[in-house]
């Protein structure tokens, strides 16, 4: 029996109140989970700054704020200008430049592999390949990005260096070591090819066919269309893929540790061993350095520099993506 009074109360909060309360409780829990991702970022930043501070001043930042006396052990000037990196040495020195150089050398060197090859692959996939070929080639290349980086490191020392780089070094009159910069550049370059090729191909495929047809109508060849129409029209997306590949190369750890070595030096010879910031972090973790030592603290100072570098890349990437969207509106 439903009377007017029944219906009136039935649609006010009463009936579904228990369900409503649960809905709100669930909503709060879910929000809490989403907030964890923000907390993670803040925690990363806090941990790096807090511990990195102790590398320079002997006490953590929060301890300093609470009144602990500073005991300067490393000067910021030495850190950013020094050219010898050996915090764990008997005669320590704290110039980060050699390992920053190592990271940049790997990044630039690998970009020389991944960018030309990735871009040419993307043009082939987008402009030449039949749908059948594309549907097989693209996922095959993406397997390259899925292989653990430790495997690339193994590949470098067991194949790339002995079978390519040593013979090439002999030919050119250099003595290539077991670990060398060139091997690191090659394997990191190979593993980032699919980032460039897949994302660039996405950008190129998004170029409207009208543009291509207009160019063909003017008597352009496929070469002209690819390089003078499609590539310029998709350049922001293509560029974003480069940034992503470079960002990945900066943070790359295991492959460069195994391939390029752990000797911090600034060298122009690609057959020499170098050390990246990430390789330094692995070597310190291996050494089981005790908490509170300068070596342990240095991990976080280096980590901070690394974090800032990749964050910068991500922000550039974001900025390009936003511009990219505007172009197509």
């Amino acid at each position, binding site marked *: 029996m439903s009377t007017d009074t029944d219906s009136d109360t039935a649609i006010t909060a009463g009936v579904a109140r228990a369900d409503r309360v649960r809905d709100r409780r669930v909503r709060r829990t*879910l929000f809490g989970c989403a907030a964890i991702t923000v907390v993670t970022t803040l925690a990363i930043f806090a941990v790096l700054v807090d511990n990195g501070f102790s590398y320079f001043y002997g006490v953590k930042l929060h301890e300093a704020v609470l009144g602990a006396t500073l005991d300067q052990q490393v000067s910021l000037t030495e850190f950013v200008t020094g050219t010898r990196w050996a915090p764990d040495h008997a005669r320590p020195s704290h110039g980060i430049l050699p390992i920053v150089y190592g990271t940049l050398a790997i990044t630039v060197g690998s970009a020389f592999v991944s960018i030309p090859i990735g871009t040419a692959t993307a043009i082939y996939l987008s402009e030449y390949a039949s749908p059948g070929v594309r549907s097989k080639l693209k996922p095959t290349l993406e397997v390259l990005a899925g292989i653990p980086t430790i495997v690339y490191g193994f590949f470098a020392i067991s194949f790339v260096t002995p079978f390519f780089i040593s013979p090439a070094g002999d030919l050119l009159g250099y003595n290539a070591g077991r670990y060398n910069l060139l091997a690191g550049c090659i394997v990191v370059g190979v593993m980032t090819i699919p980032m460039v090729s897949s994302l660039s191909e996405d950008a190129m495929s998004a170029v409207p066919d009208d543009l291509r047809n207009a160019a063909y109508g003017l008597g352009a060849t496929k070469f002209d269309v690819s390089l003078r129409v499609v590539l310029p029209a998709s350049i922001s997306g293509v560029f974003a893929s480069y940034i992503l590949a470079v960002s990945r190369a900066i943070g790359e750890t295991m492959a460069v540790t195994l391939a390029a070595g752990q000797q911090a030096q600034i060298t122009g010879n690609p057959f020499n061993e170098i050390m990246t910031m990430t390789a330094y972090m692995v070597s310190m973790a291996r050494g089981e350095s005790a908490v509170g030592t300068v070596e342990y603290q240095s991990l976080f100072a280096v980590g901070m520099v690394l974090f800032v570098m990749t964050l910068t890349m991500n922000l550039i990437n974001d900025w390009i993506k936003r511009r990219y969207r505007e172009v197509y509106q």
Partner: protein
Amino acid sequence: MSHDTAESLHTDDSLRWEKLKNRLFLGLCISASLFGVVALVLLLADVVYESVAGIVEFDISIVHFLTQGARRDPEDAGFMAAIAASVWLMILTTLMAFFIGVSSAVYLEEYAPDTRITRLIEANLANLAGVPSVVYGLLVLAAIVNGIGTGSILLAGAIALALLIVPIIIVATQESLRAVPDGLRHGSFATGATRWQTIRGVVLPAAMPGIFTGTILALARAIGETAPIIMVGILFTARTPPGPFDTFSAMPSQIYIWAAQPQPHFHHLAALGIVVLLAFMLSMNAAAVFLRNRYETDL
């Protein structure tokens, strides 16, 4: 000469150069595409060759390799403890990352109002995905291993991996939730369901295959991650399978230890370890593809 149409439709010298240029360019593009494929084949062939060489030249017994823990002596070393550690890592990582990742995605897709906080969370996700994995290791090293003082235990490694893959699971879950037609949501609301009843009763079940697929792919990435494990754990050769509160050496870190040794015997052990690791990843990927194909047509 352009006046003479019949003549100018034939290929002249400048067009011949155009054609050559086009052919060269296509050749270049095809070579570039093949470069990646060749690199992949070489890499896999190298790993297989080194493993087989280990079995043939150094008499490594596969059974021994798969059933024994690691030893300092290469003659006697096995992969069992590392495999067990990785399986534990995967289980614990899944327990932590799946709930947090799916919950966050449900909040962002189904509940979140379009506010600055929501946009901040979304932007932060993109940023987190770009943070190098080694940095996650640093975070857990400082905050949990030494901060809380757990020491280099397996659970700490699992936390690092969970933090690493949560953003990946969130993005995959968001995509699956977006693929659920709004008609289903409206059908549920119209029966008087609350938002949560709608999500639990209709939206999540419909999105689950996609969520599982994304989670498995994220785990396949986590199982091969080496850097955070090395930052968190102490590098050593683990003799016996660890529990969640023991120190540990997982598959990738054990491979690193072996690969970094000078003796060739260890190299072949590393190669065999890689085969096992890739086999794990391959089966996880196969499971993900199977799930996707099995449930793809249902909606």
